[in-house]
């Protein structure tokens, strides 16, 4: 089972390396959206600093959502999804491998880029660790939760909008506590409570989302 997990993880990372547009597009979207704010709002440092946590978090959330549409689509189109369903290994484990590789290609680069964009937004450097920690737990949860929606809409021709409608309500708690962490850190408060809740959301989605995604894929394969 572990070897199947690693095989699928390796296969998807290899595919991402050979076809970079799939994971680069959401990343470029993230950069563009955030860098438009200083231009649109003006160079007022105080205002930018005030809205920085919200802007960074909303842009990260939308970038994650943008990349999710393709999570199972290519596999569905070329028939490899059928082969995954026919694997004797638990489908939820295979699904977890796909989500992990998706996060490594989309969430991790986004995380690494965020300090640079935080400077754009005049976020105080004391809030950077909170931004990184909240984005790390947050994007992981967003990928896990979004995978359920991606699996439900994989057989639809234009499932993107429906995916957003299905998934966004579930994203709201992550957004609230994620940006709340950064706001608190920027104001010099303790962030333990917010991070604990983000951690709890991550663990909950880690344990339930692969099962729900696997069930949704079996329904979509009809």
């Amino acid at each position, binding site marked *: 089972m572990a070897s*199947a997990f690693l*095989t699928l993880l390796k296969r998807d990372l290899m595919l991402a390396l050979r*076809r970079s547009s799939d994971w680069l597009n959401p990343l470029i979207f993230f950069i563009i959206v955030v860098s438009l704010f200083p231009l649109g709002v003006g160079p007022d440092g105080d205002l930018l600093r005030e809205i920085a946590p919200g802007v960074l978090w909303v842009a990260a959330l939308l970038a994650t959502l943008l990349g999710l549409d393709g999570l199972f689509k290519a596999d569905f189109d070329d*028939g490899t999804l059928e082969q*995954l*369903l026919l694997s*004797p*290994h638990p489908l939820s484990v295979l699904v977890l491998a796909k989500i992990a590789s998706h996060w490594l290609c989309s969430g991790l680069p986004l995380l690494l880029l965020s300090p640079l964009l935080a400077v754009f937004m005049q976020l105080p450097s004391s809030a950077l660790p909170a931004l990184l920690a909240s984005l790390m737990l947050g994007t992981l949860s967003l990928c896990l939760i979004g995978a359920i929606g991606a699996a439900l809409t994989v057989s639809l021709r234009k499932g993107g909008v429906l995916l957003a409608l299905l998934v966004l309500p579930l994203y709201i708690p992550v957004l609230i506590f994620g940006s709340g962490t950064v706001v608190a850190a920027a104001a010099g408060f303790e962030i333990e409570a917010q991070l604990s809740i983000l951690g709890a959301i991550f663990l909950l989605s880690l344990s339930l989302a692969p099962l729900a995604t696997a069930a949704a894929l079996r329904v979509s394969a009809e």
Partner: protein
Amino acid sequence: MAGACAHGNSPVSQALLEATDVAVFRGDHCLFSQLDLSLGSGQVLQVSGDNGSGKTTLLRGLCLFVPLEEGAVRWRGVTLPAKRDRYYSELTYLGHHEGLKGDLSVVENLRASASLSGSDAATLPAAVERVGLVNQADLPCRSLSAGQRRRVSLARLLISNTPLWILDEPLTSLDLHGKKLVEGLITEHVGNGGLVVYTTHQPLSLSGCDVQMLQMSDW
């Protein structure tokens, strides 16, 4: 798996794959109902019928992709989907899509699918040679012709080494040699006590095999 190859029309003593009273609907439209089939070790089932008669749906039903409206499918006497993982570890399905990644090479594709199906890739070089793709082994599947891609998926049958094969139109886009290859693969597999269910529009010459026919229009 019992190694005996059942020749002739003697009644199947121990059916491994059985379907009883199966009905499948597409929306309100009934594709087939009260369909029975039973297949034992060393037997072949050829499913034939017109376009749209439900051949593919029947095979997808046997793979548990499509829920059955009525009836049951049993493997080794256990009604599916109980023990689904054991059933899947003994089944290889070849559908309309080859299930290959265009950006991966032939060998990379086969190695990944071997690991996912729980088989070891020791027979991989021999399988690639058997389907005649030695010179293409390191090419990305995207650059192969449709027939060559089909050959890659035939290599999967050899690597997976499972008793039950479910093949949906295995001859699609294959040349004459490819047809002979498929006939050879099926005959050998059945000779080793395997089971094959396939659909086709071109008759296959499977000498020495116990071939049952299933006409979709009868159900």
